[in-house]
């Protein structure tokens, strides 16, 4: 497997210029953290929730991680905004399933996340890609 498959241009772009990066200055945000104790990477996700409609209103993140982790977090915030909790949970399950070997789930993934597909050929990097999603999962328990 070629290394370019893992580090597609769009991944490098998201890691260099992560979208929705930074801690919110004000507003009623809930937050959750994902950490990888073996390398010290840590991602903190913040979200404003609309409990009545079960929707994530806004979402952002901060933290440190490798290119895969940062790009995955950046893509995650773009995809999760204005989505229903159920949809996000399903999305995370599908991504996790696909990256850990279930080829069938590929069709279930939104186009924006297709660039993460190379990660599945690098099993030791799957946890880098999933770290922000685990944080988001934790955050959703606030609902």
């Amino acid at each position, binding site marked *: *497997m*070629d*290394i370019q498959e893992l*580090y597609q241009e769009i991944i490098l772009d998201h890691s260099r210029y992560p979208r929705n990066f930074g801690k919110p200055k004000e507003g009623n945000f809930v937050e959750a953290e994902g950490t990888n104790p073996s*390398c010290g990477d840590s991602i903190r996700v913040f979200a404003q929730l609309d409990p009545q409609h079960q929707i994530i209103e806004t979402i952002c993140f901060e933290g*440190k*991680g490798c*290119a*895969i982790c940062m790009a995955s977090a950046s893509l995650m915030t773009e995809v999760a905004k204005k989505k229903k909790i159920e949809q996000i949970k399903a999305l995370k399950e599908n991504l996790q399933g696909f990256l850990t070997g279930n080829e069938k789930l590929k069709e279930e993934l939104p186009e924006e996340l297709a660039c993460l597909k190379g990660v599945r050929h690098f099993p030791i*990097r799957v946890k880098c890609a999933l770290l922000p999603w685990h944080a988001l999962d934790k955050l959703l328990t606030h609902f």
Partner: protein
Amino acid sequence: MEPIETFRKDFPILSQRVNGYPLVYFDNAATTQKPRQVIDALSNFFLSSNANVHRGLHELSNRATELLEESRQKIAHFIHAQGPEEIVFTKGTTESLNLVASSLGSLLKPAEGILLTEMEHHSNLIPWQQLAKQRGLRLFYLPIKDKEGGLQMEKLEEIFTHNRIAVFSFTHVSNTLGVINPVESLCSIARKHGVISVVDAAQSAGHRLIDVQKIGCDFLAFSGHKMCGPTGIGVLYGKKEWLEKIPPYQFGGNMVLEADFSDSRWKDPPHKFEAGTLPIAEAIGLKAAIDYLCQIGLDKIALHDEQIGSYAYSKISSLPCIIPLGPKGRRAGIVSFSIKGLHPHDFISFCDRYGIALRGGHHCNKPLLSKLGIDSTVRASFYFYNTQNEVDQFMEIAEKCLRFFKLPCN
């Protein structure tokens, strides 16, 4: 004289290709590869002598016991202990250090202090930290100078003079900085102040000569798997009088001299520290590893270690965006570095595609890296089977990687 790398032929694993490229194994500080001699010793034991030790009266048990005790004898000789009774088998450095912290720790008085250094890895930090918390002991750290990493030796006398330090536990070679600590001086100063010294030799045993008489330590710990031996076997050396004085660490079969329903008495050291069935085959494998290393010569191995470490350090330091850690001068064969604008994971995954095995992360050395303001590093660590040519191959790939990620400093 035969170049030391010719011993590569004894390591079948090294001749493979990984991801289509010849394997370059630079993760020796995590674990070293095993020569055929060690693999054969393990296999021969299971094929011809496998039995439990010390309790059987049959031939195989007798044979296994003899082989195990030969190993203990060999280890004692290898580190210049006074005798095999000073050698306790454990499952590794971590267990050895937990044993000392727990057993010796139970004799310490509240308000006494334990001194560590800022470069200790978790194995030599957490057991003492937890002991201190449980027993109300004070924890002190001998600081490092800066990212070059030598210890602030001048602070040592001061700490000993102004605090009631009971134990000084420190590493011989730093697994992150590649610093070689002056163990003899550290032990001698400790002794002068009546402080018990514990040396973590995880990164030095099998890499340089270990002479506990010369070092002058009270305890010394190391693992088999970082010196060509199997995993799951480690050693705690303790001066006989200390091993007699400190209580057992774990309790159960094999360590008991006499037991009734109300109380028990223990065997003499080292057996009182060896509850349950030992890693017998692994101990025998460790003996084979020691025989193998001695045949090459520890002096030759140490020289190679320092030469390849310095060579790699100077090469790696010359790359743009690289921030190397540890001393510029004399160093062990461990080179850690961070890269401006690139996470270690990305560098390591890139190198892995070209068959180069490196380590990334905090190397179980989180407090040190926090102090240096670094989250994680890439670590290349070498052994006698690594060649300068492999370092050059690595440099080519490293440069390729920096270009691939278009780092701003390029």
